[in-house]
């Protein structure tokens, strides 16, 4: 099978990755047929299951569509007027692209942490409590805020200055604040789009440790441009690529599997090249 797949891989315009069938339960079953921005076909034919309580890492070169696919999982791309999605994203068996689904509700269950830390221009406390208020939570706010900040490993640093502006924190702290804000409402899934790209190595390590802890409670989808990060935290890895040499600009899934397998025994030549290129 692997030899056959490799011969197909040389012609990338036709290539469709073998769907990965995870052993555990999945929370999101994403089957992308086509994603367009206007007339531009950004991503095609990619089946990406996201497993429950695991970290699914999305890797690949720039422009391969990994962020686009991740942002399709909670309909963040709907903010872009020319965005068009063909395919299905089944979240607990419901297609979130079905016509009567409210994207606002989807985003409440599937939270998101962005590339750039983006706290609101309000106090640390209000940032974390934002989602709770939004969901009309009736209960002990202080407790929930503290719990979220503790989970985000930020509580010790900010417990004495909860009234300060969220913007007064350092970059790494801001990103952990955004994580706390995202998990305060206890969403089901947390999507993280290159959450460490604006952070220094120390802050990056803190956030990575945090992800491993969050896995206990949440399901995580992680886009990263950093392959080491994928090996450090990813349980499953999806490798996307875009074949620029042939003039194509459309990204697609090349290979998906347990992280160890993708990195140590990749089935596709493209994956092999990419993984080696980064390591040697």
């Amino acid at each position: 099978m692997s030899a056959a797949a490799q011969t197909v891989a040389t012609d990338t315009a036709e290539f469709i990755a073998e769907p990965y069938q995870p052993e555990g339960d999945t929370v999101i079953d994403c089957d992308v047929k086509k994603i367009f921005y206007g007339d531009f076909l950004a991503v095609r034919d990619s089946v990406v299951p996201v497993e429950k309580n695991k970290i699914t890492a999305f890797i690949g070169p720039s422009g391969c569509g990994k962020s686009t696919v991740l942002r399709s999982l909670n309909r963040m791309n709907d903010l872009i007027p020319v965005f068009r999605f063909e395919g299905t994203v089944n979240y607990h068996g419901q297609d979130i692209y079905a016509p009567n689904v409210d994207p606002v509700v989807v985003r409440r269950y599937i939270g998101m942490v962005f590339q750039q830390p983006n706290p609101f221009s309000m106090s640390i406390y209000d940032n974390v409590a934002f989602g709770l208020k939004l969901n009309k939570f009736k209960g002990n706010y202080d407790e929930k805020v503290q719990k979220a900040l503790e989970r985000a490993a930020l509580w010790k640093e900010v417990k004495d200055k909860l009234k300060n502006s969220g913007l007064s924190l350092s970059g790494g702290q801001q990103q952990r604040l955004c994580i706390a804000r995202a998990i305060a409402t206890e969403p089901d899934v947390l999507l993280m789009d290159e959450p460490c790209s604006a952070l220094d190595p120390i802050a990056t390590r803190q956030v990575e440790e945090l992800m491993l802890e969050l896995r206990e409670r949440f399901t995580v989808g992680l886009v990263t441009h950093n392959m080491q990060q994928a090996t450090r935290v990813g349980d499953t890895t999806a490798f996307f690529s875009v074949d620029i040499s042939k003039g194509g600009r459309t990204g697609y899934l090349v290979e998906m599997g347990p992280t160890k397998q993708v990195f140590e025994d990749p089935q596709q030549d493209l994956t092999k090249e990419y993984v080696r290129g980064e390591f040697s």
Partner: protein
Amino acid sequence: MSDVDLTATADEGLVRPNLQRQMFEGRAIKNNLLTVLTWIIAILAAIPLISVIYMLLMRGGTRLFGAGFVEVLTALPPAGFEMGGGIGPAIVGTLTMVAIATLISVPFGIMAAIYLAILGPTSKLATISRFLAKVLTGFPSILAGVFVYAVMVVNFGYSPWAGGIALSVLMLPTVVLAAEEAIAQVPQRMKDAAFGIGCTRTQVIWKVVLPTGLPGILTGVMLAIAGAAGESAPLLFTALFSNYYIESLSAANNPTASLSILIYNFSGMPFENQIELAWTASLVLVLIVLVFNILARLFGQPKV
């Protein structure tokens, strides 16, 4: 979508979330109501404009676009019960005074902008002038008239010069701020290139900065002119009003007509003819203002 899936996840203790759009849920209702309200407000805001334009065309347009348009544009204003008449002196007066104001405010304004944007952008003088220029843009225009009255009219009487200078006081800050912005947007690399081949600062400004920033500067100047042409309060007691054409720019005590003061004076008259002329003058004034606004947009468009 089918109910069968539900059990699969429910077994694991996960409540399957309802993602359906809830049209009549509180949040959705609130969201839609606010959107409708915003649309209503936006459309309501357009009504006065449409009404003004309609009135200008219906009541002012009959004369301007009718057979007697030459008379309207050239004749002297009618007195009392007289029929006919025109707004010739007012058109000439407005254009003259705006020209005077432009000739004064543009050179001073651009030179000041050069200082603010290039020569000493962070100096104390620049900080203060910039701030005062901004304060002056919000300055009641009638006070410019009061000021010029006290300085000039008391000594030399009413004149187109007094009117023009009062208008230039209002134009100056607009020109300064627009020109500063246009000049500041000239890329540093262009200036560096000119300095790099040994230009003096004056040469950099004349040969690189002003030509590059010219479209932006002209946009600012055109907008300032459009604003000045429509002004009336500063002319009330500097140019006063006259029923006749300007005969000389050098005569002492030389009251001068303007479109805006003509509109003001005629608006309160009990004669239908004068009221109609006020509408005609309004249409002409709005057209003049529009021409300069359109020019401002044309200059503002980046060159392809």
